[in-house]
Structure formats: structure tokens, C-alpha cells
């Protein structure tokens, strides 16, 4: 079943390739992503929570001489990431609907390829398979930035590619070392995630490998000070690119920490947690302040992502139930909220052809639907109770507080700064005297896509257990091993 979900977008990409009409590809993409989303829901409802662990496992022989196997499956964590990925991809299509006005075939083909790669990252149970998807995802993404991006698209696409690729090299080396050490000790060379995670490495080696993995994941998250590619990439990326970048790609780094760093190197993970606390707190406060003075709305949302990912990082390293569950929930929540915010920014850009707050203003006078939804997502970003962000923030702060009181206090300071930059942005865009003569409100397509996300944000804000029940077992076994 997981393989079907994994391959479906690929199939869609093939269809797109053979489709003659430039218009019809949109519908193919919408249909494929929609079907993928539905299928992932099927897995969600058929995952046996009481049993836990990895389910829906598919595997086959691939490179037997190197014991590399094709092996995919989902546990609670993967499942949540899978739902998020298919959902955001499904939302990305309507966000591209009008924005992408040339080379549509290529675009939707790449988008579907990207979806397959992203799903692959979250469901791979083989280290090498994971690495292949991890890198494969870079190609369609940098092409999307490089072809449909803004003025400095080439610079940003290259920066994105090289920066994350350079980080990933450490991951590859680390993986190979891990496999060789495992093989030389047990006599069994394997890239199987489950077997490797049972193995206890000596602390000295854990330290080295921890940092190798850390660099790759930290660049992807991105965690301060490895974050500077993100604003550049976001600013230049087309709307659907930003939606996916913020919605899904950033979570790959944090997923990596949970899936690899913590089970493989638990002692080093614990040892270096304070370093991450410091980096996380700096990310929360420092980037919030940077966001405050930006004039490009996309930069504001991009920096806000770095700030929010700081909460996730601290939650992950707090090593207690609330922190980790909060971090997982915050990953999902940030996926929804930041995707929605980029969608909104894109909708404005389509109409005004500017991203500068200086040239916006008063849009609430023209567009009640847009203004209302934007307010809702602004408040979600601020972490108002009743939205899913509150759950994520509250739990991660609680987790940080349990790990060390000062961490909790400094994280909570973020609620002030977060409110400041979001509200100033909202004021400059939607309030004040209008600087434009007319502005069209959201059309049905945009309203449905954003409305759907808004319903999820509120629903999961009141019923986070719907998501968290899938990760209770996962978290318990994870923490049991530490």
C-alpha cells in the first residue's frame, strides 16, 4: 500500500509527460495528488494503533550483494509526515493554478516527482533508500526555484542545492561509517534501519557520527546559523515552491533527528542537547527580530519558519513526552500554517505583482475573505489557543521547561516577538489606507484550498489527540530506549 502511494505521483508525472494539452496537466496533477492524499488517509484509518511499530511494510531485494533492500513502511511518526506531505502537495496544485503560466507540463511533472521523493524520505526503512530520496528531492525543487522563480532565481536555486547537498555529504559519510562499524562488529552488513537502530555504538563514535548527521539535518531544518539559504530560496521560489518548501521540506531535517540521530546516537544526543537548546532559543528570538524589520512579506514568513522550527528543535532535544510529541505536532502544524501563509502571499502577489509591504495596505477593505483567512492564519502563527499552533507551542515549551527551566522561559518570550512581527505584517498588508485602487477577493479555488487548511488548523487545535494518538506509542518506545 505504501508503495502504491509512493509510486502514484511518479505515475502521474509520466502521464503529465505524455499529455498533449498544457491545460489538462493541471487536472492530472490535481487528481493525482488528491488520490494520493486519499490513499494516505486510508492508511491513517487502517493503521493499528494498539499494535504500534512499523506497519504496511513492503520490501524487495534490490542490491543483494550490498544488502541494500527496497523497504518501506510507516509507523506513527512516518504516518503523520506522510499525511502532511500528501496534504501539502494537494494544496500546492491549486496554489500553482494561475501562478505558473509557462512550461506547465514541466512544472507539474516536477511537482509530482517531488512528491514521490518527499514521500520516499518519510517511508524509507533502508538507509540508502532514504539517502537516495533525500537527495533526489533536491533536483525537482531547485529546478522549480530556478525556472519559475523571481529575478535572482538562479542564485537562490544554486545556493539551495549546494548548501543542502554539501550538508548531505556528511550524512552519506556518516551512514557508511555506521554500516561498516555495524557490519564489522556483528558480521552482518545491512542498511536496514530497524536493525541498525538496535545497535549501541561506543560513545566516542557516537559523538562523531552525531555531528555528521547533525550538519545534514541542521541545514535542512534549518537551524541557526545554517538558515540563510531559506529566505533566499523562499523569496525567489514560486508560490507552490514556497508552499512545499515550508510545508514539507523543512520537516525532513527534524524527521531525520528523530528517525536517525536519536535512536542511533542516544548518548551523544543527550550530551549535546544543551547546544541545541541554545541554538533553538537563538533561532526563536533572533529570527523573530529579523522578521520584524523585513519589508518583503515572503521574507517575513520565511524567517518566521526558522523561528517556529526553533520550537521543534528544542522539543526534539528535550527528551520528554511533551517535548517530543509537541515537536511532532508542531511539525505538522507548521506545515499547515506556513503553507497557508505562503499561499496567501502568493495570492496577493498574483494580484499586485509585489511582495513589498510598502506597496500594499488596506487590502481588508477590498477582500473580506482573504483578510479573514489571513487573520486566522496570522493568529495561528501567533499561537492562539484554539489553533493547532497553540498545542505545538505549548507542548514544546512545556518540554523545554521540563528539560531546563530557563529554556522554557526563553521559548515563551517568543510568543511576544511572534505576535509583533505577524501583527505588523498584517497591519501593513491589510490595514491602513489602501495603496491600491482595486483588489479582487479570493476566488472559489483559493477559498476552498485555504478554507480546508483553516478547518484543519481549528479542528486539530481542539482535537490534537486525533493526530497525537498515532505518536503516543512511538514516543513511549523512543523514550524507553534512551
Amino acid at each position, binding site marked *: 500500500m505504501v508503495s502504491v502511494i509512493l509510486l502514484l505521483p511518479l505515475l502521474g508525472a509520466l502521464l503529465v509527460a505524455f499529455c498533449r494539452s498544457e491545460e489538462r496537466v493541471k487536472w492530472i496533477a490535481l487528481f493525482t495528488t488528491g488520490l494520493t492524499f486519499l490513499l494516505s488517509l486510508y492508511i491513517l484509518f487502517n493503521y493499528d494503533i494498539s499494535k504500534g511499530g512499523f506497519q504496511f511494510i513492503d520490501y524487495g531485494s534490490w542490491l543483494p550483494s550490498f544488502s541494500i533492500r527496497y523497504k518501506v513502511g510507516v509507523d506513527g511518526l512516518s504516518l503523520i509526515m506522510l499525511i502532511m506531505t500528501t496534504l501539502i502537495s494537494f494544496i500546492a496544485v491549486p496554489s500553482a493554478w494561475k501562478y505558473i503560466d509557462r512550461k506547465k507540463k514541466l512544472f507539474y511533472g516536477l511537482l509530482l516527482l517531488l512528491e514521490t521523493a518527499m514521500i520516499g524520505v518519510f517511508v524509507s526503512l533502508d538507509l540508502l533508500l532514504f539517502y537516495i530520496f533525500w537527495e533526489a528531492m533536491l533536483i525537482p525543487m531547485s529546478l522549480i526555484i530556478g525556472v519559475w522563480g523571481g529575478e535572482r532565481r538562479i542564485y537562490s536555486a544554486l545556493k539551495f542545492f549546494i548548501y543542502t547537498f554539501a550538508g548531505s555529504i556528511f550524512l552519506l559519510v556518516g551512514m557508511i561509517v555506521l554500516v561498516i562499524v555495524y557490519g564489522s562488529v556483528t558480521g552482518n552488513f545491512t542498511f536496514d534501519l530497524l536493525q541498525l537502530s538496535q545497535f549501541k555504538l561506543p560513545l566516542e563514535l557516537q559523538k562523531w557520527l552525531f555531528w555528521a548527521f547533525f550538519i545534514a539535518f541542521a541545514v535542512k531544518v534549518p537551524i541557526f546559523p545554517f538558515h540563510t539559504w531559506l529566505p533566499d530560496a523562499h523569496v525567489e521560489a514560486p508560490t507552490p515552491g514556497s508552499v512545499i518548501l515550508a510545508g514539507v521540506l523543512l520537516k525532513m531535517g527534524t524527521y531525520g533527528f528523530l528517525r536517525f540521530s536519536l535512536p542511533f546516537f542516544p548518548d551523544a544526543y543527550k550530551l549535546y542537547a544543551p547546544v541545541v537548546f541554545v541554538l533553538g532559543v537563538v533561532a526563536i528570538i533572533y529570527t523573530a*527580530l*529579523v522578521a520584524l524589520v523585513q519589508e518583503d512579506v515572503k521574507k517575513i514568513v520565511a524567517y518566521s519558519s526558522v523561528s517556529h522550527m526553533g520550537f521543534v528543535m528544542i522539543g526534539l532535544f528535550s527528551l520528554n513526552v*511533551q517535548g517530543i*510529541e509537541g515537536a511532532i505536532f508542531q511539525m505538522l502544524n507548521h506545515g499547515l500554517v506556513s503553507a497557508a501563509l505562503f499561499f496567501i502571499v502568493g495570492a496577493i502577489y498574483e494580484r499586485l505583482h509585489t511582495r513589498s509591504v510598502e506597496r500594499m495596505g488596506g487590502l481588508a477593505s477590498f477582500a473580506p*475573505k482573504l483578510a479573514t483567512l489571513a487573520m486566522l492564519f496570522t493568529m495561528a502563527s501567533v499561537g492562539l489557543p484554539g489553533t493547532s499552533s497553540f498545542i505545538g507551542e505549548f507542548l514544546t515549551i512545556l518540554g523545554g521547561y521540563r528539560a531546563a527551566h530557563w529554556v522554557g522561559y526563553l521559548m515563551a518570550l517568543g*510568543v511576544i516577538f511572534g505576535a509583533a512581527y505577524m501583527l505588523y505584517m498584517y497591519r501593513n498588508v491589510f490595514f491602513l489606507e489602501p495603496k491600491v485602487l482595486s483588489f479582487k477577493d479570493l476566488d472559489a479555488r483559493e477559498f476552498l484550498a485555504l478554507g480546508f487548511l483553516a478547518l484543519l488548523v481549528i479542528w486539530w487545535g481542539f482535537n490534537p489527540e486525533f493526530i*497525537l494518538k498515532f505518536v503516543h506509542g512511538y514516543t513511549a518506545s523512543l523514550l524507553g530506549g534512551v
Partner: protein
Amino acid sequence: MGVGFLIAVLPLVSFLLAGLGVLFRWQSFKNRSHYFGLVTVGTSLLLSFYVLFKVMKGAVLTEEWFNWVISGGLSASFGAYIDSLTAVMLVVVCFVSFFVHMYSIGYMHDDPGYDRFFAYLGLFTFSMLVLVLSPNFLQLFFGWEAVGLSSYLLIGFWFKRKRAADAAIKAFIMNRVGDFLFIMGLIAIFWVFGSLDFQRVFSQVGTVSAATLSLIGFLLLGGAVGKSAQFPLHTWLPDAMEGPTPISALIHAATMVAAGVFMVARCAPIFDGGYILPVVGVIGVITAFGAATIGLTQFDIKRILAYSTLSQLGYMFAALGVGAYVYAMFHLFTHAFFKALLFLGSGNVIHAMNGEQDIRRMGGLYKYMKVTATCFIVGTLALVGIPPFAGFFSKDKIISATFANGHLIFWFFLVVGALLTALYMGRLVFTVFFGEERFDVREMRHLHESPAVMTVPLVVLSVPSVLAGFLGGWFEEFLKTSVPNHVRELPHSMELFLIALTVSLALLGLFVAAVIYYWRKISPDVFTENPVLRPVYLLLYNKYYFDEIYNLIFVRGLGFGLGRVYAFFDRYVIDGIVNSVAYLTSWCGEVLRLTQTGVVNNYVAYFGIGLITVILLLLIV
């Protein structure tokens, strides 16, 4: 589900219906949006009376709506816990909200955002009701933040005006500063007690050290100080005047600022267990006295009322600070009626003056708008504390309680504050409603009494403003079933002396105000132009420069200032390093490329050098 659920959710229905109209521009909804509000809040009001009578018979109603599980052990039920404290708040909130709804039909009549206004009103009422009904800290925080959101939306209602948009942001962010502490309070409570349920937390208070309780109390107090606009987070409230006047009535009387006082009263066991109560008192006294002094010098009719709210909230905090929780709530109760009355009255004045808010351009309005003026004067007498008006009873109880509990410094400043209250309110009434007419002749055309829909609420609110004080005995007994009240008994003669002192000071204040502003025997310039007093006057007129100082330190300094520095650092240092690494790599490539000449002779030379090096190495090793 139950009555409590209906009470809270009905205004939400109004919000949703009116909101749908706004979203999809349904004209038929727009013209009817006030009905949604009137019907739903009216029903809530009736139901809350019903609940009040039930609770008066000694019942405590509890309801569970749904379970809000956050994670594992961290869960709380959305529901209702209605004891006497909540029952009273329900009535106050619904009562004021209902008449604000009614009043707004007239006040907002021509506003293009008519339906949006009623939608926000519904949201505001809903939020506050959820807040007062909460059986646990989590729901309290939900209501707390929802109130903040609603007030943000309403203060910025006329969002095209920069001042309104900025005031909204200011209110939200200053509240967030308090919320930062409040969230940490919740987390500390969960950490210490393992629960967020009021009853479970309060029943375990005895097992926790006083130092821990003080910390929790401090954190909760932070939230209350933000929400109730106490020193040093008070500056948002006067700016909140940028919202439409009915909203000021709602914010100042029942919904927003009351939340802080309510929360402290609700958490009395925590505050009683720690050492933080004196801090509450000091904050209250500073606010009560400081705001009153500022009120003396302002010219904007709504601003004067805003500082009077700050000042009265200060009295409530002072009462909380000496442990007289019930008296704080009683003052909140009476204050809700007369402050709503005063704000709605000022709305009529502004309406009649065609938007003018400067009291220097008013005067002699009494003869043009007798109903409004009479009601306004009733409200003023209640606020000043003249017997038998409501404010006299509640304020006097607070002042006596500070004396009885031995906080003589508090007592002194509160008594002087009462004098100042009489002074600035007398100044306001005499300048606006009496004396010469200082407005433009052109404005005369607008000058008229407001329509019935705007005067009836005033008349209705006047009734409790006069009579609510007589409920004092009942109120005290009733609230003591849920809130403690630690006040020592005073000898009867002493109490009478204190009352006489306070009342005569209030009368003196009114008299001095009359001398200056009615009979005009002394010109106010004596105080403002006097070289000795002028610096003091300027200090007060500029509100002790809080706005300027905060703006400099926090907005321009730590906010945008540091933000710019960081943005520069981010762009040129961090990203600079990243790019330098890239350039360095490509430079190495460029340099090494020079070796790739394509000339065979060079390659043979490299080969030779390499060979010699290897041989040399082998020989050495």
C-alpha cells in the same frame, strides 16, 4: 452540555451568522446583523439570571462539554464551573453586552462595517463568557486569548486609520507580554500540581511550599497586569480609545479588563498561599493613584474616562492585594454598570458633537441633551463615590479594608485618589455639560439628543448605578461561598469616621472642580502656567512619559533597532560567511584550473616532479 454551554455559545452563533454575512457580503444578513446579537445575548442574559437564582439556592453547577486532551496527562475538560463568582460575572457580562449591542444599533448605524461590528461583539461576548465559566486553567487561557483577539479586532475596527491599527497592535502585544508570564504560570502549575483543573490545584495548595506558590502567583499576576491594564503594562488601555465608543464601554466595564481581577479572585488560594499579595496591592495603588493624576490633565473625553477606569481597576487590585477579594469583585460589579453608562454617555456626546472628543470644544450641552446629561451625572456620582450611588459602597469598602488590614500607606493614597477622582470627574462634567458653549456654530446643527435606542441603555444602566450599592450585604454573603475575604473588623465609630472622611474629600473634590470649572472663580491656568507647577503639569499631561520611554526602549530599541542590527548581521555576517566559503571553493577551482593547460610538456613536467617527490619520500622513510 447544559445552561452554561448555551449561555456561552449563543453569542458565538451571532458571531458566525454575522461573520458569514461579512465574508460573503450578504446584504440581507448585514441589515439584520444586530438581531443575531440581540436575540442571542438577550437569551444568554435571561439564562444567566436563571443560573444566578439556581446558584443562590446554594447549588454549584458543573458541566462538561468536551475533553480537550493536549497530550497524555495534559488534558482538561471544556465545561462550566458556576459558583457564585461565575454566576455574578455571567450576569454582568451579558447585561452590559446586551445593552452595548442595543446601543450600537444607533451608534454604528451609518458605518459600512455594521455587520462586522456585530460579529466582533458576538465573539467578544463569547470569549469573555468562556473565560468566566472555565473550570480549569486551560479553558481560562483560551478565553483569555480569545478576549485579547476580540479586543484587537475591535480596537482596530476602523483599520484604515493608522492610529487605530497601531493601538490594536499595542493592546495585543502588551497583553502578550503579560501572557508570556501567564503561559509560564500555567506550565509551572502543571509541573507542580500535575493538573490544570481549578479544584484539583486549589485542593493541593497546602502541600506546596510558599516560595513555589509565590512564583506561580507572580507569573499569574503578570497575565492579570497585562489584561487589566495595570502599571507597568497599562499604556494600551488609553490608546484603546481608537475603537468605536460602544467597544470602550464593553472593554472597560465587563469584558476585557475585568478578566484580570476575576482571575486573581479565582486563584485566591494560590495568592493566599504565597508572598505575592503585597505586590498586587502595590501595583494596584500605584495605578489607582497615578492614573487619577493623569486623568486630571487630559482633554479627550474618552481618555479621561479611560484613566478613570485604570484608576478604578487599581482600587480593585489594591483590594485584592489586602486580601479583600470579595470587595474587589463588588467594586468590579458596580463599576461595570456605571462605567458602561459613562462610556455610552460619552458616545452620545461625541455623536452629537459630530465626532469631536476634545472637552475644550464642548460646554453647556446639558440643555441640548437632558437624558444623556442626567444619566452621565448619575454615572459620575457613582464613580466619585457619593452616597447613595453604587460606587460609594464598593469603593468605601475597599478603602476601609486597606485601613482595617493595617495597610495605611495604601489607605492614604486611595483616599487621596478618591479626592482626585472627584476632581477630574467634576472637571469633566462641568466642562462638557455646563458653562459657556465653546463649539463652532456650524456644529449646532448636529446638536441633538440621541435616538431612543441610544438613550434607553443609558437609562437602564442608571438603575444599577444608583441601586447596586444596596446589594452590598447580599453580595458579600453570596460571594463568600466561593471567594475568601480576609478583612479585619473595624470598630463601628472608626468605620463611620473613615466613611465621613472619604465622602467629604469626594465632595471637596467636586466643590473645587465647581469653583474652577463651573463658577470659574479660579482659572485652571493658575496651575498649568505656574512656574513651580508647570513641570508637574507637563509630566502628568504626558502621562509620565511612559509611552515615550517604552517606545524608545522596547519598540525602537529592543524591537526594531535590534531587529535591524540582527538583519544586517544575518545578511552580511552569517550569509557572508556562507557565500565566502562558496567563493573560496570556486577560487580554489579557478587557481587549480591554471594547471590544466592542455600542453603536454607541462604534464610531463608535473609527472617528473611527482616522480622525484615520491622517490625522495621513499628514500627518506
